[in-house]
């Protein structure tokens, strides 16, 4: 299992914990991640809100680098994953876009590089059985709300990630780790991430209602696979009491951090110390596997 690894900009900034836990867990499971040399920003929201050619050309440049490596691209950030897949769709469905992107990047790109999210690789390529056999620790019945957000599942005809309205891939991982994935209605709701700095009030409202739903369903923590969701729910949690009058201590952990704990990886190597809301409930529930 060898992949061209695209870390994405947040890996060196707000989502170092995602990068640390993702790469450490991959290594522990024998997944070989070769970082793409010279990778650049996917353009994120800012590019697609500005110009369609810019928005497709920035991801295309990176997929061309992966293509040269002869490997599928592996992504841990949900936004980068989304932009890569949308670009593949844009250039393979429109000759006009293909021409314009080729002109911007300086070489043609046909949209053929396969883009995988790490959790897809974990469940589909590694498999739950091998994962279960690799765990040294168990989540000990921890109640986990699996939260998917927007970018992995939509637009579903393009991302083709699990199910559009009721994805279960994170739930399956939680259950394999000895946790209890809870049934709750907020799985694919939007956290408001795109407005994090510009309209924080909207983010607090949307993210607050997501935590409300998880709490009402009995969650001890929320597991995420997207750095924007993580930032909205974790970093903005302290802003919620002032606006909504509701206070929480809900840990927002990356699914790869939970996997790291169950693989017996030291906390520091999976960035657990970087979370704003301490994952106390998670650590209290964690035990060695029976």
């Amino acid at each position, binding site marked *: 299992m060898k992949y061209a690894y695209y870390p994405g*900009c*947040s890996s*060196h*900034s*707000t*989502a*170092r914990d995602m990068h640390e836990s993702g790469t450490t867990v991959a290594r522990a499971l024998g997944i070989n991640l070769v970082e793409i*040399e*010279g*990778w*650049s*920003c996917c*353009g*994120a*929201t*800012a*590019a*697609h*809100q*500005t*110009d*369609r*050619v*810019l928005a497709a*050309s*920035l991801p295309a*440049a990176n997929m061309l*680098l992966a293509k040269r490596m002869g490997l599928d691209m592996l992504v841990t950030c949900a936004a980068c994953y989304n932009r890569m897949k949308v670009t593949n769709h844009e250039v393979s469905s*429109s000759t006009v876009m293909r021409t*314009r992107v080729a*002109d*911007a*990047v*300086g070489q043609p790109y046909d949209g053929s590089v396969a883009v995988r999210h790490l959790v897809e690789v974990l469940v589909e390529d590694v498999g739950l059985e091998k994962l279960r056999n690799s765990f040294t620790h168990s989540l000990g019945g921890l109640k986990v709300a699996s939260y998917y957000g*927007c970018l992995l*599942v*939509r*637009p*579903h*005809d393009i991302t083709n990630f699990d199910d*559009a309205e009721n994805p279960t891939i994170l739930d399956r991982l939680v259950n394999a780790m000895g946790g209890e994935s809870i049934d709750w209605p907020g799985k*694919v*709701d*939007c956290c*408001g*991430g*795109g*407005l994090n*700095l*510009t*309209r*924080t009030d*909207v983010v607090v*409202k949307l993210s607050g209602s997501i935590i409300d739903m998880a709490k009402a369903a009995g969650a001890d923590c929320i597991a995420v696979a997207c750095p924007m969701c993580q930032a909205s729910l974790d*970093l903005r949690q*302290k802003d919620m009491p002032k606006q909504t009058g509701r206070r929480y201590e809900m840990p927002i952990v990356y699914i790869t951090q939970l996997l790291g704990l169950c693989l017996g990886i030291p906390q520091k190597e999976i960035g657990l*110390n*970087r*979370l*704003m809301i301490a994952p106390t409930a998670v650590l209290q529930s964690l035990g060695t596997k029976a």
Partner: protein
Amino acid sequence: MDDQGIIMTITINKASTGTGLKTVVEKISGISLDACYQCRKCSAGCPVAGPAKSAPSEIIRRLHLGAGDELLENGLVWMCLSCETCYGRCPMEINFAAVIDALRSLSLEKGSKTPEGNMPLFNRMFLSNVRIFGRSYDLSMIAGYKLGSGSLMDDMEKFPAMLKKGKMAILPPSGADKKTVRRIFERAKQGRGKKK
């Protein structure tokens, strides 16, 4: 949904500013709006229809009825989160998120008034750092946005914790193929010039 975002009477003067936008929006986005029959599933699922005081189906109806440049100042244009719930639930598979992106690029081109929060400023700061470094440089991007929008003191209390937890890099990013990134920005800009 919490307020007047969904059920309303639309009153518009045909193309009160300039000519109707529907054709140009359809051309930029590559999306036809003709199949919309106003079932409003998109609006029911829109997380920002309330605060934006407007909803996806309403924008489509306004375009049907011949709305002009005044539509570019509608609250949803810059508040839309591109969560794509509208597209996901549309029985006619109309990609409304792509329609909003087309309205945004028109709004930038025509210099329309931007709403509270100034998303275009945020995007400019984000992209100018990507153009220089080849990757996003959050510290510089956030400082630029906060200076430009006059919100310098907001979130100040979070900064020390983010630094301590290593969630904010001090040094600019390095290692990207900056030459290709600059070329892409140049060519995309030239393409925008040609359209006019």
